[in-house]
């Protein structure tokens, strides 16, 4: 998939490829021309990526080449030991978790996993979890609490799966229970939106002490398409809805919905998995350090206050 707004970049990249091929065929040296083009390309990327609309950022967040959890795990963590099952109904492949080590810090890692190939997408249900996924997540958080290790969650989902079976088995109950329990879990919780943070399906593993977003991830109460078809009565207006909903990391930082933006490399995560992973790693280490030193009572009080301040509208006399 090529993104529309990346066309100028793609054009230069194509030229570079042509020149390189020509160079080999014709045995003429185009090194300086290629270097020049590469500079231009880099500049073009920088320019484009510093002036993206919310809708364009959403396209990046959904980009099929964007790293997913299975890409991040080996780049960020050691010794991932996956734990399976909700001990009630099933094992959801769309929402996985297990023990992991981050720079000698033991923790519980939980996250949506979309997969990359078509087969993986199907197996992982495109990262759209069912109640058993949320219940597994909660079970693992309880293990983390018992083992006294922090929890890190990676959010990357269009939303909780909207299917008959999921409704029947209590999608709403599963998410609601997680929100309630996560408010009280007695270990630090750090949550990071890596791709698309889709409403209830995202926040279902997204209650934490620290909420982070990658530069080109989005977090939204509803998909812009869904919002447009309700409020504009036409899904075509999704780009307008995306803008109006303020779903980008900078907008949400300003609204104090998130604590920090984890920087992506120039041209976004899918151009450099390694650097993205490294930035995530550094940021997680920083916050784990801060949170680990806090006594449980203080941790829980601060978590409570974090949510208390969100949309904290004061009662005013004489309206």
């Amino acid at each position, binding site marked *: 998939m090529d993104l529309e707004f990346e066309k100028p970049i793609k054009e230069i990249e194509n030229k570079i490829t042509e020149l390189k091929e020509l160079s080999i065929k014709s045995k003429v040296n185009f090194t300086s021309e290629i270097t020049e083009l590469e500079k231009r390309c880099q500049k073009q990327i920088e320019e484009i990526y510093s002036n993206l609309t919310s809708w364009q950022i959403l396209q990046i967040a959904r980009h099929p080449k964007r790293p997913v959890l299975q890409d991040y795990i080996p780049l960020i963590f050691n010794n991932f030991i996956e734990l399976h099952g909700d001990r009630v109904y099933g094992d959801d492949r769309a929402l996985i978790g297990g023990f992991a080590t981050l720079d000698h810090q033991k923790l519980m890692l939980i996250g949506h996993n979309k997969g990359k190939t078509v087969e993986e997408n199907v197996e992982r249900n495109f990262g759209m979890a069912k109640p058993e996924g949320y219940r597994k997540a909660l079970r693992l958080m309880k293990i983390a609490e018992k083992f006294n290790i922090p929890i890190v969650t990676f959010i990357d989902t269009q939303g909780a799966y909207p299917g008959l079976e999921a409704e029947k088995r*209590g*999608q709403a109950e599963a*998410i609601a229970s997680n929100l309630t329990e996560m408010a009280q879990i007695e270990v630090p919780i750090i949550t990071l939106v890596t791709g698309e943070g889709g409403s209830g399906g995202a926040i279902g593993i997204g209650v934490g002490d620290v909420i982070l977003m990658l530069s080109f991830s989005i977090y939204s109460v509803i998909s812009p398409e869904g919002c447009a078809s309700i409020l504009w009565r036409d899904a075509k207006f999704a780009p307008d809805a995306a803008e109006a909903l303020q779903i980008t990391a900078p907008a949400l930082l300003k*609204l104090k919905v998130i604590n920090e933006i984890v920087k992506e490399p120039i041209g976004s995560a899918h151009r450099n998995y390694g650097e993205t992973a490294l930035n995530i790693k550094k940021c997680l280490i920083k916050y784990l350090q801060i949170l680990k030193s806090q006594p449980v009572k203080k941790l829980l009080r601060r978590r409570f206050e974090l949510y*208390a301040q969100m949309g904290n509208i004061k009662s005013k006399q004489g309206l």
Partner: protein
Amino acid sequence: MAWFKKTETENRISGELKLDIWTRCPSCESHIYKEEWHNNLNVCPKCNYHDRISCIQRLNLLVDKNTYVELNPDITPIDILHFKDGKGNYKDKIKETIRKTNLNESVITGYGQMNGKKVAIAIMDFRFLGGSLGSGTGQKIFMAANYAVEHHLPYIVISASGGARMQEGMLSLMQMAKTCAGIAQLKKKNLPYISILTDPTSGGVSASYAMIGDVNMAEPGALIAFAGRRVIEQTIKQKLPDNFQTAEYLREHGFIDMIINRKDMKKRICEILEFYQR
């Protein structure tokens, strides 16, 4: 605060109530005297269809006369995002809704007595922006939970909501976590929390405070859903069962403790609270 009086608006909750003296039941289509309909608490005397009622009617129904004290009555929605959609500004919509409904938010919260027993209570009203969960809604439900915790009271929440309030973006979504954090405090202190799910209770409200009652009660036939019926049909490309996402369906599948007629609701809540022995 004085006891609530019936307002004009209550007489036109449902679009069906346009005729002068008669109204037609949306379910069985019987013609009923408006007065009878109203006296019967907007419940069809023929088929037991439970039509929506205003938060004021609900309050009069549940809370003992002259005992109710409202908390944070002046909280109104704030247009933090300066949200505009195809039809206009959210700001204007707020103003208009407040004027039309005579309410300041999609929920009223406070404390009062039920058969002499003090409780904290929150009652949603679907007329106010579809009962959507805005920051003000969340804040009020959260503050009433805090009040219950401080004063060791049971907390009763009556939901009626289409879900999150899009026009407030992520701040609306975060109200799910905020309200649940409030109710988590009740759970921690072993205080009873009773959730009443009325038509409709869906989206972000069903997936937060509405679903986590020690006891979940619903009104007959109420729509209770996470995802919308249409979205599901598009996703799975299958017809859905007729009673899908009704209170009855949810009871059958383990999520609702009991379905109670509107007229019996107060009695049943009080009976349950009597079992609380702390």
